[in-house]
């Protein structure tokens, strides 16, 4: 049996969680840190365009420094992190410096690159390859000049090779999230790449872990009933050689690991539970069982694996204009009616000034904005007007941002809460998922002695 935890579910998660988890669970073998959501790559691209040394999750250096004292005392925990983002080399360099400063010069970093296929994608597109969008079926030629990033989702193979070579930290760019958990399993248990049922177990363990506290009660339906949520534990699995595992969390932490929280996380971002697709296997979960064995311990078992698709999945992003959103608070009688009218006035003024927008939206927060059209709008005494536009014309979006403040004087009585100030236009990134034949992709593994 071996233990794998997750202590970063996304870039922006609790930066103190990784060292805390290592301290709370001294027998943890591996720690996975997941920094990359679908749109994170485009944010990293923006940062790199302003600073060539940027483009990775800088939070990771804080994590490395915080774990260093455990390493100096001989704690063997090994880390798999996709903190490299769009600039894994700069991330590795910063990591080397952080480890030297922290007195951990005996550590080995494995740098996994080759996932950045932007130039390949552009070349193929210009040669006439369709690279159709998996959601819309459109050819990539329509956006090729606006592409910002294109990265393949690596599977576990290069990560396993890195661990086999003795890496203490495996640093990657884009890799399929659950493969960061699968790789330590394959390395530890020496599972063959075609041992699909066991690989399926490693992947589903990764699926449960990859969003951190979402496995320990975070965003669960019964969140309000959970104990000590302020001290919510991050999850880890106890993985068995047969691919089944127990989901749990450190003793003394808050939140809960029960059949309900684990079932909910199994369903998170799920498509067909009979065919969960990843670069290492396609998993059938229809016979999967979830069983509470003790308090905060849930056994998950029963996976069928099949060979994975032949092609790599690529997630590309492209620039698609600008957007801005602004808010005003309305208090008093007829607050919702006043808010709607205020929003319409803003659009009316912009139209008169000669501006039009590809997309606009007016919402009354508090009156069911998360479920537009679904429920009878309540008669509120207070609401927040949220008004948004998007367009390719940046100047039009900037003009919109200036049109909200005037309502502070010219709007309804009870108009307040313009504290956020003038909204700033931000770039919109479109997401382009497509497939790339494996012959165009080559993972590269470099071992770096700190």
């Amino acid at each position, binding site marked *: 049996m071996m233990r794998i935890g997750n202590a970063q579910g996304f870039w922006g998660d609790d930066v103190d969680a990784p060292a805390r988890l290592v301290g709370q669970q001294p027998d943890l073998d591996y720690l996975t840190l997941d920094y990359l959501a679908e749109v994170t790559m485009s944010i990293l691209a923006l940062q790199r365009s302003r600073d060539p040394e940027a483009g990775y999750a800088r939070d990771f250096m804080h994590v490395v420094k915080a774990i260093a004292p455990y390493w100096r005392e001989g704690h063997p925990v090994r880390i798999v992190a996709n903190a490299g983002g769009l600039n894994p080399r700069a991330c590795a360099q910063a990591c080397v410096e952080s480890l030297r400063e922290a007195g951990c010069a005996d550590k080995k970093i494995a740098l996994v690159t080759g996932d950045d296929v932007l130039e390949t994608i552009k070349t193929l597109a210009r040669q006439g390859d369709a690279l159709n969008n998996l959601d819309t079926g459109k050819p990539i030629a329509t956006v090729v000049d606006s592409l910002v990033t294109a990265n393949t989702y690596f599977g576990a193979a290069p990560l396993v090779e890195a661990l086999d070579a003795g890496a203490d930290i495996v640093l990657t760019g884009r890799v399929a999230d659950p493969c960061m958990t699968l790789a330590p399993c394959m390395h530890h248990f020496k599972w063959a790449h075609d041992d699909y049922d066991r690989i399926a177990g490693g992947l589903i363990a990764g699926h449960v872990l990859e969003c951190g506290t979402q496995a320990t009660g975070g965003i669960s339906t*019964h969140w309000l009933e959970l104990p000590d949520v302020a001290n919510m534990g991050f999850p880890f699995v106890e993985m068995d050689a047969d691919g089944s595992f127990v989901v749990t969390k450190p003793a003394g932490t808050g939140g809960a690991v029960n059949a309900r929280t684990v079932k909910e996380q199994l369903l998170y971002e799920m498509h067909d539970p009979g065919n969960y697709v990843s670069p290492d296997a396609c998993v059938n979960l*229809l016979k999967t069982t979830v069983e509470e064995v003790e308090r905060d311990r849930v056994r998950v078992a029963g996976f069928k694996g099949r060979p994975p698709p032949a092609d790599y999945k690529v997630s590309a992003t492209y620039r698609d204009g600008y957007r801005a959103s602004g808010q005003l608070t309305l208090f008093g009688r007829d607050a919702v009616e006043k808010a709607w009218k205020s929003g319409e006035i803003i659009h009316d003024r912009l139209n008169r000034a000669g501006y039009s927008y590809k997309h606009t939206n007016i919402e009354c927060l508090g009156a069911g904005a998360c479920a537009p059209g679904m429920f009878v709008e309540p008669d509120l005494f207070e609401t927040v007007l949220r008004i948004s536009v998007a367009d390719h014309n940046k100047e039009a979006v900037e003009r919109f941002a200036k049109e909200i403040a005037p309502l502070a004087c010219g709007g309804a009585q009870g108009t307040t809460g313009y504290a956020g100030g003038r909204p700033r236009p931000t770039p*919109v990134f479109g997401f382009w998922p497509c497939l790339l034949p494996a012959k165009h992709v080559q993972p590269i593994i470099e071992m770096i002695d700190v």
Partner: protein
Amino acid sequence: MTEHRLGEIAHARSGDKGSGANVGIIAYTPEGYAVLKTYLTSARVEAFFRPMGVGVVTRYEWESIGAFNFTLPDILAGGGSRSLRIDAQGKALGQILLEMPIPIDEATLTQCRRPDPLRSPS
């Protein structure tokens, strides 16, 4: 036969994928799963979410964990960084679907409700 909210017999989890989303509905009891298998069809869920602009809804049965998964294409009006909605990532969709009214008689409802009392620590 009276109407009750789905949330009395099931819990939920939603998440986004591009401009679409999914909502998993998990029955509290096997009796509740049977009720939902009959009543909570893809057509009913699609009709329920129509005001939000959903595309063709698919239902996946997942009996081993007492759940149904619904995929809701196009419900996020763009999703990601593009959607202008406050809930661009579909975080609230589980809570919305749990408000769906379902007709159920009192005897069956008793068998479908969560067996443990509300608000007890797990």
